[in-house]
């Protein structure tokens, strides 16, 4: 490997030119020809990137484009196979995260690197080389966090804190290291729009103070709004650099995908609303574990023909709501009513026989068994729904195989060889399979939790279109999602979940982001308590 520096090749002339002109005396980090290989896959292929002081630099790309791999090399968690990193003009070998922090590189992780059982101050101490006495560190945390408008209570145990505060801990932890470059991986995916606005203020202040920010996001609106420069990765290579303020979200998206992105629209075809197929009536459930969320008086009517979306920040009871509707968490009988039949105390198989279908958030380990073949994973949800997969307790491998072929073809599930284990599929393909497995039944009621989380744009568009098509054919579809873009794209009505309370579902046309944001931030709760 070791291609060396001299051979640095840029894939497009533009990018090469850009690098030449961008690196200068203000250059903080200059990566040249970074290459990283995982087995047969080239995750990063001779990537060049220049980050200047005081710049908010967007790193864009689809899932699997190599963004995480690249920043992990900057943060010392991964070792490059080729190329070099210059930090303030000096060639450096970042062997581990501690070395990165010594240089002045901090990172805010997408799935936080926090310890739930430990306190805020212990969490922060773990990332500092010389944390000193805990009491002094607590004072520093309080003053720095107040100074940046991100107040924290150092003694709190992380497990008790909501997601927004957890991100605050990560940011304050970075700030205490007095970094010159902060890497942020999808920071707003867990925030309400209002919380995100606050974050942007912090970032702008940091940039003014001379700190650089490498900002990974797939929310192109916000990239356009706050970033000064953008580098776009595709299949591990830098394909473009641009000034995002001069682009539109659509143009940025097509750079990422390499083609125009098909957009989906629920409003293209007006729904014909039928009778109620799923009713939740004052659905309440206590938290099963100290880490779970209780559900409080959740009510919702889901009618034939429509797509209803439930928005909300992660960890506000979405998983619990899904489990209560699917039957994995039993509740009182009349709290869940399927086609007029009370079934809150019935199991998931009974509900499937009532023609309901479910797609959970976690594909691997909940929706599918990782080490089993796709044909076996079909049996998982369809063994008792009259699909001839089981006769007299014996399984029919032949029928399962036929069904696997059908789903693979209809929903464009791509695989390296026939009938592989679920774990070998990419996120997008596995999601197409898991959704396809349920759509194949033509369910009367479909409940989907995070239908396109971590899925590439092409697969996401296909899945969203399939959900709308199902609704328009007379079924009722409930989508639980954290992605507001997705929700506004496909929903006929929108409800918001916050701390286990659900707001009333209102027509999408009457909703906007600000209102959804307010409901996410506790408005839904207030509404629920009044009701």
């Amino acid at each position, binding site marked *: 490997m070791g291609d060396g520096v001299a051979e640095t090749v840029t894939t497009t002339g533009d990018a090469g030119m850009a690098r030449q002109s961008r690196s200068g005396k203000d250059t903080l980090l200059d990566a040249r020809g970074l290459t990283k290989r995982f087995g047969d896959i080239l995750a990063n292929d001779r990537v060049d990137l220049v980050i200047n002081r005081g710049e908010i630099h967007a790193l864009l790309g689809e899932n699997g484009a190599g963004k995480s791999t690249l920043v992990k090399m900057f943060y010392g968690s991964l070792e490059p196979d080729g190329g070099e990193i210059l930090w303030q003009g000096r060639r450096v070998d970042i062997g581990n995260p501690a070395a990165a922090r010594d240089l002045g590189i901090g990172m805010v992780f997408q799935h936080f690197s926090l310890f739930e059982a430990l306190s805020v101050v212990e969490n922060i101490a773990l990332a500092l080389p010389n944390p000193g006495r805990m009491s002094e560190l607590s004072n520093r945390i309080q003053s720095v966090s107040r100074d940046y408008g991100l107040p924290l209570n150092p003694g709190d145990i992380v497990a008790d804190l909501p997601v927004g505060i957890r991100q605050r801990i990560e940011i304050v932890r970075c700030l205490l290291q007095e970094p010159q470059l902060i890497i942020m991986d999808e920071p707003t995916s867990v925030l309400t729009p209002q919380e995100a606005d606050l974050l942007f203020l912090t970032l702008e202040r940091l940039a003014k103070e001379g700190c650089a920010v490498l900002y990974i996001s797939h929310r192109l609106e916000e990239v356009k709004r706050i970033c000064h420069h953008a580098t776009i990765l595709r299949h591990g290579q830098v394909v473009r650099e641009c000034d995002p303020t001069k682009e539109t979200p659509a143009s940025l998206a097509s750079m990422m995908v390499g083609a125009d992105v098909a957009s989906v629209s629920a409003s293209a075809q007006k729904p014909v609303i039928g009778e109620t197929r799923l009713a939740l009536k004052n659905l309440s459930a206590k938290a099963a574990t100290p880490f779970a969320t209780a559900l409080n008086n959740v009510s919702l009517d889901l009618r034939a023909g429509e797509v209803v979306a439930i928005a909300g920040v992660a960890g506000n009871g979405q998983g619990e709501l899904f489990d209560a509707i699917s039957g994995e968490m039993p509740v009182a009988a009349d709290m869940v009513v399927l086609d007029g039949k009370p079934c809150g105390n019935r199991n998931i198989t009974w509900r499937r026989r009532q023609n309901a279908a479910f797609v959970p958030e976690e594909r691997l380990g909940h929706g599918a068994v990782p080490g089993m073949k796709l044909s076996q994973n079909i049996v998982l949800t369809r063994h008792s729904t009259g699909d001839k997969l089981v006769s007299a307790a*014996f*399984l029919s491998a032949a029928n399962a195989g036929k069904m696997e072929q059908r789903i693979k073809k209809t929903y464009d599930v791509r695989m390296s060889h026939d009938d592989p284990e679920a774990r070998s599929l990419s996120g997008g393909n596995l999601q197409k399979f898991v959704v396809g497995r349920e759509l194949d039944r033509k369910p009367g009621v479909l409940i989907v939790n995070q239908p396109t989380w971590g899925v590439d744009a092409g697969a996401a568009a296909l899945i969203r279109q399939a959900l709308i098509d199902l609704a328009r054919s007379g079924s009722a579809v409930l989508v639980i999602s954290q992605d507001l873009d997705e929700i506004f794209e496909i929903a006929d009505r929108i409800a918001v979940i916050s701390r286990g309370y659900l707001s009333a579902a209102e027509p999408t046309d009457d909703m906007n982001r600000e209102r959804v944001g307010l409901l996410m931030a506790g408005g839904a709760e207030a509404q629920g308590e009044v009701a």
Partner: protein
Amino acid sequence: MRVELVKRKEHSRKMALLSPLIAVGLTAIAAGIIFSISGHNPLSGLYKFFIEPLTQEWSFNATIAKATPLILIACGLSVCYLSNNWNIGAEGQFIVGALFGSALPILMPDFENAATLPLMMVFGVIGGALWALIPAVLKTRFNTNEILTSLMLVYVASLLLDYLVRGPWRDPGGYNFPESAMFSDAATLSTIPGTSLSFAAPITLIVAIVLAVILGKTLKGFEIRVMGESPRAGSFAGFSAKKLTLFSFATAGGLAGLAGTMEVSGALNQLLPTISPGYGFTAIIVAFLGRLNPFGIIVAGFVLALSYIGGEAVQSAMGVSNKIASVIQGLLLFFVLACDTLILYRIRFVGRRGSAGEASHV
């Protein structure tokens, strides 16, 4: 040099077959080293231990007699381990099964007819299953760790056996020896006509085949495997983890109890303070070496039974302690577990940092 694991995209079928063979090979090498350390020719030691018992009829039959309970218990344990229920108390379930089975000939010695033996076996199954259900119920009701409770019950079962053969069940005409009266003919599991093999062997074979069909071809088998690999996905499929815990423990306990009853009615013909040379623990090794597959377990049962017979053989022929058998059994389980890593991972030996190009793959 450091060892790195590279995850395979899918399970390696080739390695699934090869890994037990590699493990047996490595164990043989380790055993050879132990023989030479203790001052014996490693090759003749290995021959006496692993090969010679198979060449003579009596020792071959003795191997089958030892393999039978091991296979039967391991079949039950495979249901537990496949479904992620850690029953390590089969030794206790074996003992309690034997006690239940023996209750009939000891308490009602005059009840001698064709129903005696079948009834004893049914009692044995019930006894073993009930004993196994204790940790299972505690797990499902109170979330108690089944590993520790099932093991604790082994000690309790041994003490219970000890109490009975020294106390109420002691043979009144037995000169105060700690043993029960000998069983009548009706309570004795006979040998297959024309051979010196007990009927326990064919019964075990049938159980293994039935279990193989259940595991491989039925929805129940599917449920067991799904629950073991991914309990969350299993509950999404509509399977109940609690019911399966009860089912798997009852199955394992029942089979261990059957093995216990057949051992006392077939091989020993009475109750003694010790009725098992650790079958319940050795069966754990059998289950893993057999890759939790009934046919694999049959082969593995022979390998482990051989270690008992081989241990006796090297003791009498070479003066090596027969304790070497349990060392070899322990090493075998270690190697089996280590080799199973190859099924899901490739192993890379990396020279120095940064010279990944020189890595060699296994």
